[in-house]
């Protein structure tokens, strides 16, 4: 077997060794695939279905970027990462971008040298408890046993919250969402805490979701967004504006359904610039003129991605809330395409 491995090393090194780290765009094009880091499995955001096909809201962002760059929404290699491995995977170049409901914080941006390209989900940390406990507020959780995912901002927020309210708790650290579920369901912890969206997604996977309640307190700001390495601004621009294109498309009323006719040219110059029938925005990014059109057709605009994966019609059932367009009282606000 030893030869196999040498051979494996040779082929793998041959396949993946690339000359320069800086030009991620060139690497991706040469490889013909986008390496996108996602979670190991969180229904609604990124999880493999029964056939091993990845699906979810974060996955949609990956596919949009792949479509914009390579013209093929399926040219994505999804790399599952844990809270521990995600940053190393990105820093070492194993993945080109990370779309793993990662909170944008100062130290991650500045100290860990990553570039958050935007926010695709405004979230906050919440608590879920079994209904039978009769708890109605997080402040009643004195002495409770709390399951937390390690390596996330949630365990820091948790410590802060309980310290600020001067109540005690017993933390049970867990690596992945999957391991937390049985512990919580069997009652080895009283409370499960993570981002509110994650709670909703986890609860949706339970046999009896109605037996669990999410407490009203949201104890932190968790702006989740895709991120890339520091230093390669061209690549950062591509990911940033692909995300913006999805948001702007919703604002401008461009959907996967009507994008065909709209791309022919409309009265609205911004739509024309976005879809490439006017101006040369694509060229400025180093992509085709219809890059945004491909990105939007991959899975639809922001609203369509949201509704299909985590929206109210799905099992997860999240309402738009803060994630509505600014015109509807939310926080989504794409800079103009000009």
């Amino acid at each position: 077997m030893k030869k196999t491995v040498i051979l494996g090393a040779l082929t793998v090194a041959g396949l993946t060794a690339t000359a320069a780290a800086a030009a991620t765009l060139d690497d991706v094009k040469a490889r013909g695939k986008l390496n996108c880091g996602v979670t190991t499995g969180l229904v609604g955001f990124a999880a493999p279905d029964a056939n091993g096909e990845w699906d979810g809201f974060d996955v949609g962002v990956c596919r949009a970027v792949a479509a914009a760059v390579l013209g093929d929404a399926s040219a994505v290699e999804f790399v599952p990462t844990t809270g521990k491995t995600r940053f190393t995977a990105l820093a070492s170049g194993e993945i080109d971008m990370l779309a793993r409901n990662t909170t944008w914080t100062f130290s991650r941006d500045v100290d860990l040298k990553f570039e958050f390209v935007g926010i695709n989900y405004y979230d906050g940390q919440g608590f879920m408890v079994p209904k039978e406990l009769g708890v109605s507020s997080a402040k009643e959780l004195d002495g409770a046993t709390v399951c937390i995912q390690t390596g996330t901002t949630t365990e820091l927020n948790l410590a802060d919250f309980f310290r600020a309210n001067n109540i005690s708790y017993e933390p049970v650290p867990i690596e992945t969402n999957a391991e937390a579920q049985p512990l919580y369901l069997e009652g080895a912890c009283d409370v499960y805490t993570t981002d509110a969206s994650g709670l909703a997604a986890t609860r949706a996977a339970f046999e009896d979701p109605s037996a669990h309640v999410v407490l009203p307190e949201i104890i932190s700001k968790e702006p989740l967004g895709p991120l890339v390495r520091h230093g390669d601004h061209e690549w950062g621009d591509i990911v940033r504006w692909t995300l913006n294109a999805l948001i702007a498309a919703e604002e401008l009323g461009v959907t996967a359904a009507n994008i065909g006719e709209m791309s022919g040219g409309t009265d609205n110059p911004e739509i024309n610039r976005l879809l490439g029938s006017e101006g040369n925005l694509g060229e400025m990014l180093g992509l085709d003129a219809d890059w945004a059109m491909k990105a939007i057709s991959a899975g639809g605009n922001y609203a369509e991605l949201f509704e299909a994966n985590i929206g109210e019609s799905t099992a997860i059932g999240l309402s738009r809330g803060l994630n509505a367009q600014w015109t509807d009282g939310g926080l989504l606000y794409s800079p103009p395409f000009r």
Partner: protein
Amino acid sequence: MSDQQAQSVAFVRDTMLPQEAPPASQTGPVKWVRDNLFPDVFNAVLTLIALFFIYKILAGFLPWLMGGLWTTASLAECREILDGATGGCFSVLTERWNQLLFGFKYPPDQYWRPTLAFVMLFVAAAPLLFAMYVPSKVLYFTALYPFIAFWLIWGGTIVVPLVALLGFIVGYMAFKKVEAASFAGALGAAIVSAAVVWFVGGFLSDAMSGVLALPEVPSRDMGGFMLNFILGVVCVSLSLPIGILLALGRQSDMPIIKWICVVFIEFIRGVPLITLLFVANVVLAYFLPPGTTFDLILRVIIMITMFSSAYIAEVIRGGLAALPKGQYEAADSLGLDYAQSMRLIIMPQALKISIPGIVNVAVGLFKDTTLVSVISMFDLVGMIRGPILASTEWNGVYWELWGFAILMFFPVCYGISQYSQWLERKLATDHR
């Protein structure tokens, strides 16, 4: 006789009575039970306690096993059918059978490939394990096996393994050509010529990527028990030669080489495997040239191989040390050089002594492959802890799944260690 007896004195018997059977308490099962189960009070108590526990375990286990269900689609359905009766929900095994064995991403229509490779492994291993019963011609197949297995499991064009094989053949021929002149020179020649073949072959396989191509399966998609098996077999076979070199290096009288080996071995043996896996997972990437990325599985193979080769080196060093000094001196006095004396005199004996130790390391290593689940790889344990136990259908099926895991590991490990004991007896040429 009977006449005589009749005439003899009435109360003196001069003939033997026919032998009687021993009393019931001194023979058969009764004696066995008394001697082996109830020889004294203390042992009787122990026996009773043991019987009680055995009864308890069987009373819990058998109904669970017999009453088990094999065909339901989810735990809820299973519990409903059981309706409070004792029984296991073994349907999780039937439903997730493929996932447990192959992971959840290996393409289902290609399952025959790893299965075939697995079956062929036995054929390939037979001449190594049972050298005295299997015709040595099979060894050719063993030599070919790594290439076939690579092609089967990973897929892609057959040109890649062929080129690799060619490289080894060319290297071997170069070695033979120059060997007479100098061993070191021959080694150099072999490496250079093999490298040339691989370099040229690299272009060739790029150009002919469609020849006899099986669908490629990236190693990220390997999982389940297959992953444990791949890691175990690959790392043990890789670490054997490295371990031999390290052991020789540690015994060598060249101080620099000796110290390099000592530091390496002691370092690796001093840290837990899990930290080495962390290195593979989060640190190793920093030490590779900028822009290069290795697969996680390859990085893991590198670290596990380093780990096990250090242990194997220590076992072989024990074997080397156990050889009487006279063997070394005899080899020297025959005028053999270092390479020859090692190859022809020392190693065959030292390896023979170290076989049980090596097998122990191999078993330990195979068990340790489960640790990769900690760095979020989906081996058998990873599959159980992650996708299966977290799925809506099978949330809470513990005993069936862990029982299955034990059933997968126990026979393999037990079988190998029994084999090593058998071999030890077989090879024991000294009479004690």
